[in-house]
Structure formats: structure tokens, C-alpha cells
């Protein structure tokens, strides 16, 4: 119900309007009566005194998208005033160079400041309904809406396999049960007593709200763990594993020192290389060790290799291969592996070459083993690494991955809605309102969560009442 309603109001909508390419350039489109004022709240002009409100129609401006004091991206903003735009509404287009992560953050900001995520095909639909697209194209417009919706549903569902969907189903079931209990008691008050129920409901809602908050946080940019390539970094101590991880994540998550064996435990991190999501596990250096603490790390590392989709094998190209390397190579032979010859900046001291590595790998499934010369110290080789992964997993083509992030953000938006609704239930309890008011917002939470799963509302509540509660005066 609510979803249908939202689709037909003339509120302000936003979405990423371009397929994401390797170049990382993309456009976020905002359309609707409040496009200008909403964008203005997150925009700071390069000339401080300007705001978007003085933006001349059909012109482009340079500036920054900011989240409070933090600058998120340098952008170009173009403004098309109604009716001279694609949708014939006020349209703002934000041109970003920041890649998918940054664009998602911008989209997120827009959602927080009053935009709604566009439904599949909604820009086109508005363009048609506002008379921008002529009648002969009606058929095509309908096809676009239908196709985009199917695509969005598919990708939305495909992402929901596993834990998130189980969790959401669980939350929904709990909410539905409480709704049904309240409704049963309202319908048959002589049979079901609500005395003391509000405090019980409160104790049920609070952990649910917290769980939803945790889910929202876990879906935050840079920490999306699902759909990433499970990657293990292996190599002898001090070959540069932690430096590689740091280069990928951009911070000092793993401690990097010169002392062998500093990385004591398995460190997990989700990182993006352009459009590729890597779920990276840094391991303690694989080395026969007597150090108990480090031994735990090494055992874990071996088991992680078993589970991995991709192994990044990092070698110190200034020291010769030995038995330890052979042991590691044995572990890598049955896995997709990329070899990084590190410390390549110390070129006068190279002891390992591509040929030597290939010789060690001969007879394994890794016939076309990618080998990349890197220098973590100088940050060389990361682009090549990205290309190699792309070749290995996506045949070099990663454009289709685009929708996934957008639907992710849709999920996040809906989770926030559900969380807010539960907050309102707690508020009603706080204000001592009677139980029939709780169901107003419980329904809101239930519907938002259902939308994530792509489920229809239907007669769930009535079904639940009859199946769980004995009615019948």
C-alpha cells in the first residue's frame, strides 16, 4: 500500500542516473519541486557567498558536497528549471568523480535531507506523465518501467540471500505477532487482556530497534560485506602483506612494522578497488613457528585459504624463494591466485622474477597466473592488480554490478524507516497512549521491512490473528 502510494506523489526523488564505469564518473539526478532546496542543504559553492538558490537555470557550477563540515566530493552541479528538463520538473544533476562509494554517500545525504529513492523507471514515468515524452513512446515507457522493476527486484532479491534476509524475516515475524496480539485483544477484549502489555512490548521493541540500527551501520559504505570476493593475502613474514592491506583500505588498520610476526590475528576488512568489492583477510605470515599466539593465527590462515575465492600471494622480490614459499605455493595451487612481486622499487636487488614464480606453479590449474610487480612503499601496481582481478572474475566487465549498490542503499533507506517507526512505537508507550496506537507504527515498520524482501502486504495480519490467537465470541 504505502509503496504504491509513494510512487504517485509529486515529491522529490533521486537516483544514480548513470551506469558506473571504470572511470568513476557518474551523475546523481534529483527531480521534483524541492530539488533545488534539498541539494542546497548539502552543497557548498567554491565561491563561499553563493548558494544553489541563486543558481542560474541551465548552467553548471563547481562546488563541494558536504556532510556537515566534512567535504565528501568535488562536483559539478547543473540545474534545469521546470519545465525545461527531462521530467519537466526542477532537476538537479550532480556530476561526481568520486566513484561508487562517494556517489552512494551523496545519495544517502539526499535521502536524509528529504528526497525519496526513485522507483524503477520513475524518471521516465514522470517525463511521460508530464508530457515530455510523446504518445508514440508510451509502449516503450511501459516496457522500461516493467523491465527496470524486474531487474531491481531480481538484484534486490539476489542480495538478500543469507543472513540479512533471515534476520529481516525474523524481525517481521516478531512484529507481526505483536500486532496480531494487540488486534486480537482489541477485537475480543473479554478474552485477551492487555494489562501490563505496554511494558512487555517495550522490552521486545528495544532490542529489535537496536538490531535494525546495527544492520544499518553494517550496510554503511566501505563495510558492505556481502557480494565481495573473499580474498586472502598470504606471504612470508614481512613480505608486505599488511602494507598491501593498508594500501587497499587507506588506513593503518593492520599494524605495520619491520618485526616479523607483528600481525598476530586474522584481520578482516572489506575494501573496494574501483567497482570491485574485496572481502580481504590478512593473515599472520605463514611460517613454522613456536610462538603460541602466532600459531593460532597461522592455523586460522590456512583454514581461511581453504574458503577463499582469491589469493593474493605477496613475495618479497629481494629475497630468494625457500621451503616456506614452496609450502605456500602448494596451498595456492588449486585457487585463483595473483602473485605480487613486492619491493620492486629496490630494483638493484631483485632475486625473484616472473619466470621463477611460473616454474614453481607449473602443473597447477593456474596456467595463466597473473604476476604483478608492485611497490607497496610507493603504491605502485594497484591499478594493475585491479585489472587482474577484474579479468579473473568479471571477464573485464563490471558495469552490471552497478544496480547492486543502489538497491543496497534502498535497503538501508527502508531499514531506517523501519527503525524510525519502532522509535515512534516506543514514543507512544512513553506517552502512555493506548495499545491501538502502537499498531499504527508497528504496521509502518512491518511494511518497510516487507518492502526490502519484496513482499506484498496482503492479509498477513488477519491471517496471523486467526492462526495464532483463538478468536470466537
Amino acid at each position, binding site marked *: 500500500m504505502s509503496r504504491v502510494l509513494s510512487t504517485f506523489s509529486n515529491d522529490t526523488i533521486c537516483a544514480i542516473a548513470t551506469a558506473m564505469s571504470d572511470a568513476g564518473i557518474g551523475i546523481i539526478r534529483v527531480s521534483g519541486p524541492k530539488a533545488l532546496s534539498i541539494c542546497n542543504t548539502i552543497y557548498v559553492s567554491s565561491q563561499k557567498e553563493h548558494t544553489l538558490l541563486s543558481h542560474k537555470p541551465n548552467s553548471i557550477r563547481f562546488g563541494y558536497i558536504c556532510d556537515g563540515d566534512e567535504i565528501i566530493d568535488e562536483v559539478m552541479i547543473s540545474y534545469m528549471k521546470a519545465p525545461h528538463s527531462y521530467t519537466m520538473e526542477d532537476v538537479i544533476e550532480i556530476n561526481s568523480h568520486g566513484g561508487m562509494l562517494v556517489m552512494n554517500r551523496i545519495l544517502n545525504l539526499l535521502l536524509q535531507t528529504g528526497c525519496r529513492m526513485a522507483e524503477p*523507471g520513475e524518471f521516465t514515468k514522470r517525463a511521460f506523465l508530464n508530457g515530455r515524452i510523446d504518445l508514440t513512446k*508510451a*509502449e516503450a515507457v*511501459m*516496457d522500461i518501467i516493467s523491465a527496470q*522493476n524486474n531487474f531491481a527486484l531480481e538484484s534486490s532479491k539476489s542480495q538478500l540471500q543469507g543472513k540479512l534476509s533471515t534476520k529481516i524475516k525474523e524481525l517481521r515475524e516478531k512484529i507481526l505477532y505483536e500486532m496480531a496480539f494487540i488486534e486480537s485483544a*482489541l*477485537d475480543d477484549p473479554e478474552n485477551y487482556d492487555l494489562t501490563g502489555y505496554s511494558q512487555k512490548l517495550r522490552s521486545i521493541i528495544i532490542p529489535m530497534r537496536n538490531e535494525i540500527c546495527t544492520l544499518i551501520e553494517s550496510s554503511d559504505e566501505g563495510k558492505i560485506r556481502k557480494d565481495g570476493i573473499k580474498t586472502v593475502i598470504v606471504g612470508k613474514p614481512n613480505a608486505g602483506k599488511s602494507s598491501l592491506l593498508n594500501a587497499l583500505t587507506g588506513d593503518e588498520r593492520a599494524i605495520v612494522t619491520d618485526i616479523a610476526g607483528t600481525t598476530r590475528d586474522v584481520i578482516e576488512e572489506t575494501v573496494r578497488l574501483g567497482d570491485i568489492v574485496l572481502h580481504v583477510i590478512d593473515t599472520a605470515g605463514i611460517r613454522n613457528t613456536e610462538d603460541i599466539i602466532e600459531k593460532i593465527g597461522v592455523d586460522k590462515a590456512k583454514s581461511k585459504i581453504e574458503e577463499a575465492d582469491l589469493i593474493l600471494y605477496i613475495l618479497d622480490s629481494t629475497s630468494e624463494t625457500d621451503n616456506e614459499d614452496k609450502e605456500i605455493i602448494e596451498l595456492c595451487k588449486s585457487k585463483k591466485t595473483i602473485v605480487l612481486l613486492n619491493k620492486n622499487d629496490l630494483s638493484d636487488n631483485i632475486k625473484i622474477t616472473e619466470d621463477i614464480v611460473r616454474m614453481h606453479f607449473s602443473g597447477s590449474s593456474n596456467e595463466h597466473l597473473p604476476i604483478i610487480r608492485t611497490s607497496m612503499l610507493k603504491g605502485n601496481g594497484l591499478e594493475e592488480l585491479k585489472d587482474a582481478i577484474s579479468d579473473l572474475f568479471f571477464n573485464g566487465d563490471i558495469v552490471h554490478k552497478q544496480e547492486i549498490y543502489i538497491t543496497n542503499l534502498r535497503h538501508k533507506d527502508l531499514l531506517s524507516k523501519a527503525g524510525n517507526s519502532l522509535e515512534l512505537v516506543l514514543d507512544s508507550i512513553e506517552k502512555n497512549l493506548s495499545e491501538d*496506537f502502537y499498531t499504527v507504527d508497528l504496521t509502518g515498520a512491518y511494511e518497510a521491512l516487507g518492502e526490502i524482501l519484496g513482499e506484498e502486504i496482503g492479509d498477513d495480519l488477519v491471517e496471523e490473528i486467526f492462526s495464532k490467537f483463538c478468536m470466537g465470541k
Partner: protein
Amino acid sequence: MTIVKEKFDVVIIGAGHAGCEAALACARLGLETIVFTMSADNIAFMPCNPHIGGSSKGHLVREIDALGGEMGKNIDKTFLQSKMLNTSKGPAVHSLRCQADKMEYSKEMRKVLESQDHLHIKQAEVSEILFEEVSDELKREGYNNKIVGVKIFSGIIYEAKAVILCTGTYLKSRCLTGEAITYSGPNGLLPSNLLSDSLISAGIELRRFKTGTPARMDGSTIDYSKMSEQFGDTPVVPFSFDTDPKDVQRPQVSCWLTYTNEKTHEIIKANIDRSPIYAGIIEGVGPRYCPSIEDKVVKFPDHERHQVFVEPEGTFTNEMYIDGMSSSLPEDVQIAMYRTVPGLENCRIVKNAYAIEYDCLCPGQLHPTLEIKTTRGLFSAGQFNGSSGYEEAAAQGLYAGINAAMQILDKESLYIDRSEGYIGVLVDDLVTKENLEPYRMMTSRAEYRLLLRQDNADIRLRQKGYEIGLISEDQYNKLQTKIALIDKEVSRLKETVVGANATIQKFMEKVGTPTLKTATSLAELICRPELSYESIKEIDPDRRPLPDDVIEQVEITIRYEGYINRQERQVEQFKKLEKKKIPADINYDDVGSLRLEARQKLQKFRPTNIGQASRIGGVNPADVSVLIIYLDSLHRGNADEK
């Protein structure tokens, strides 16, 4: 024999709760109306429970009254006990329920029908509906044929411009008590066995539902000392907006509460194979909200006991209705089972509990006016439409009666949407959803529940009743005065501000609410949980005396303003979709991008507007978008041609 033809405007088949409201509405609008009944001595008969109202059903009765129906007035005349349910909850779920004197209820309603101009009662079985070909124009609107009248068993034909089917549970009905099957209507009344086939031959799809009723006990064999007494309210609030509250303050009769126990459940479990439902003899689909005691025991095995309400059938008899223990088990099991209940140890059954099966309509075949889509002038209401309950029946009877009359008088039909009344929710649910069991009203079915209160049914619907012609000038003016008083008082309370002075603070301390930090309006004070309109009287010297119903509205309007505003905003959105009409002759095969499932469902239900389309199961938001684009392109195409 010679064919005798009688001429009427409207024929009503059945004089139960739906038939009575339908007949009265048509006759009151000046149409010559005849109502057929299998038994003229059982008009507005209550074959099951002896009460009117209850959760959400009480809302329906108030709405019937607001529109100019009779149910509320009739129960005000004949109740034995009255109770407002859920008074500790929010105003939206307060619900009035009255125990009725069944005989008095029936007699009073018969009197009303008999004294109504243009209304005739006839005891006869209608055996056939008569119809003829329709014009091409009507064909384009989806009609296959057009009603011209009915034929009764004797062969006499009654010509009519409209026919309203209110056949309740009487079509090909049979009653089951264990292995004993009686081919009768409820309470041993005659069934109507011929009409079903005539309807089927007109292309109307029927199905079979079932419902049930508990035993009636000889009151002199019940030991009430083992039960807890259930009293009515004082003072009593009347159902009808036109009843003077002074007229309903009279002595009331009690009901009694007792419980089943492990022993009861053991007997039922031991004999479950003899239940016609569990033995597979019953084909009809029964309601889950009103389960038989055997259903409760089987489906809720962890419940140690179930409530049993013992309610009087009337003052004309000592028969008591055993609410909560309906059953279709054989008589010997019934006797043993009832006698395990405290207070019923020595009970004697006057009338056995039984299940009843009957033919009824798949209501997806109905327009939102309750006219059958394929047959012009044929309307239907009540249990025939797959609902259950006296109130649901009466509401539909009134609605169908009004719409039949509007069609004959060539006036705009009555449409109540989901945001305007429970009647709207009821009709929309019936005609839009796949209802797989008898439909009962519930407050949880109304998404705009906070607006659809029983206390404001007059404000919501009397205007419509007045425009139709069922509400008099006097009643209408009375309502307008009430609305003006409410508005004025709400504004006054919002505008009257009290300062944080010593007198006020002293008052605040006295009534146990936090003292004021700054000047505050009286309306804001009423919003505090510990205060009310009544309790702040002392600090509101300008207050004028107002009627109770006005004060009630003022208080609700102020106290729940936030929630009410939120729902009103949702309603605005909802109305936008309801306003987008879908032409009756739309061919869904022309709408290319619809998914197959959506296309099939839309073909089947043929919704009249986009809102209704969006509520059909299996039609998703993208399908609705596609439909909107299609309608818009049709519209623009037509504009281009002109």
C-alpha cells in the same frame, strides 16, 4: 395457468438484516418495493448470537444509522443489556454492543416494514430471476444481460427494474449435527432450493460456505451460582444518533461467564472423528474467527480452557445461548460436552448446536455498488455475498438498496471509500480481495481506523445520507449545529491561554500535573495524559455548557490531533489513486508490459479505479505504474482526436 404479472420497482429476496435495510431504503426513496421472505413471522430474525454490535460491528451499526438505516434504532428499542467495549483503549476502538431480545427485535422491525409506505411483504419462495438481452451500449460497460423481474414458486411473475439478492444462508442449505443432516434453513426454517440454479444459468458463479451456532439451553437447568455475572453499563449510550439517551436508561438483564476445562476437551478429542468437518462430510468453507469448540480444541491444544458466555435469547423464553461453544458434533457428544462446563452440569438442550452449509456468491463478481457486473439491475447483499454477521449484512443491504434506487432514479450511485467508513472497507474488501472464508469486519481491516470512529459516524456520513434523501432536513440541521459547536469550542480552547501565575500553578499541583514553565493554551493542557476537558473546568471560567457528544468530539479532536493529522495526510494520497478511474471497457491485453499474473487478476476483478487495482493481490507497484501510463496515453490519444 394464465401468467399473472405484478409490477414493482424493486424486488428484495429475503427479509433478514440485509433485506430489511434494502427494502426500507428503496421504499423510503419512493420506489414501489416488495420484499419476499420464506417466513413472514421471522423478519429480521437472529438465527445465531443474540447481540448486535461489538468490536468494529458497532461501528457499522453507527454508520448504518448515519446514512438513514434502521438497525441502530431497532436495537435501541429492544436491547436487554448494553456495553461499550474497549473503553480503556483509544476512542477508535470503542465499540458498542447490545444484547437483543430476539423476538422483540424481529417484531419491532416487522412493524417498521409494515408501516412503511411503498413497501410490501410477501411470503413466497422466489424460484427464478428473469432477465433479457441488453443494448450494445450496456454491453460495452460489461453487462451480459439485464434484470426484468422474478418468478415465484407458484408461477406468478413480479416485474422489477432492480432485484436485490439477500438470501442469507437459505440457498440449498443443510444443517449438520454429527451424522444427522437436515435439509433446512437455520432454526428449522424452509430452505430455498430453486434460486441457485437460476442464478448459475444467468452466468453467476456460486460457491459453498458454512457457519455454525451453539446449543440453546433451558435456562431453568443452569446453575448460575457457578458462573460470574456480567453486567451492562450505566448509563447506557444509545446506538442511534437520533435516540434520546434518556429513553434507553432502563433495567438490564445479565449475561454469565464460565469456562470449558480439560474434561470438555477430552470428550471432544475422543469424538472428533464424528464431527462432520473432521469426517469430511462438510464441503463448505467455514470462518476461522468464529471457530466451533472442536476447532478451538484441535487448533489450540495448549489452551487449558476457553471462555463460554451464557446469554439470554429474550424475555419471551428462558432459552440461553451458549456463546463460544458452537459445534457440529452429534447430539450425544454435545450433551456430554456441555455438561462438563461449570454451571451446565445438569443442563438440558432445547435446540442442538449445528453447522449450516449454503450457496453464496464469489463477490469478485460485484461492482463497488454491489451490483453484479454482468447483470444490469441485479444487486446482492449480506451473507449471500460471503460475509457473516448481522451488522455486515445490514450495512450491505442498505448500501445495495441505495444503489439500486439510485440506478432506477438515474442518480449518482453511493460510493463510500476506505477512508470514509467501515462500510467502505467492507464493500471494498469483498469486491477486491480473494475471500476464501466468510468475511467478518474487524477494526484491524480499516487502515484509517483513527478517523473511522463510532463516535463520529454522523459527522462522516450523514451528509451522504442527506444527499441521498434518507436523512431529513431536521436531522441534517441538528448535525450542522453540532459540527459548528465542536469547531468553535476547539478554536476557543486553542486560543485561550493561561499564564504561569500562582493560581494556575496551585491548580496544577492539586491535580498532580507538572507546573507550567510558560503560558500554555487550554488545548495543550487537555493533551496531558493526567488532565481532561472536565478536569480543567476550574481554570476555564469562560466555558459554556455543551452537550456530551460535542464535548466528546472536542476532546478527541484536541487530544489525538497529531495522529489524526498523520492519517489525514495518508488519506490525501489514497484519494489521489481512487480518483483515477479505469474505463469499464478496458482490454488488459492491450496493456503490453503488464505481467501475466497482474493481467489475469485485473481481468478477473475489473477494478473501477487505480486505487482499487493497487489493492488486488498479485498486482505490484510497477504494474500499477504501467497501467497509469496506459490510461494516460489513452486519454491523450482521445484529446488528440478531438
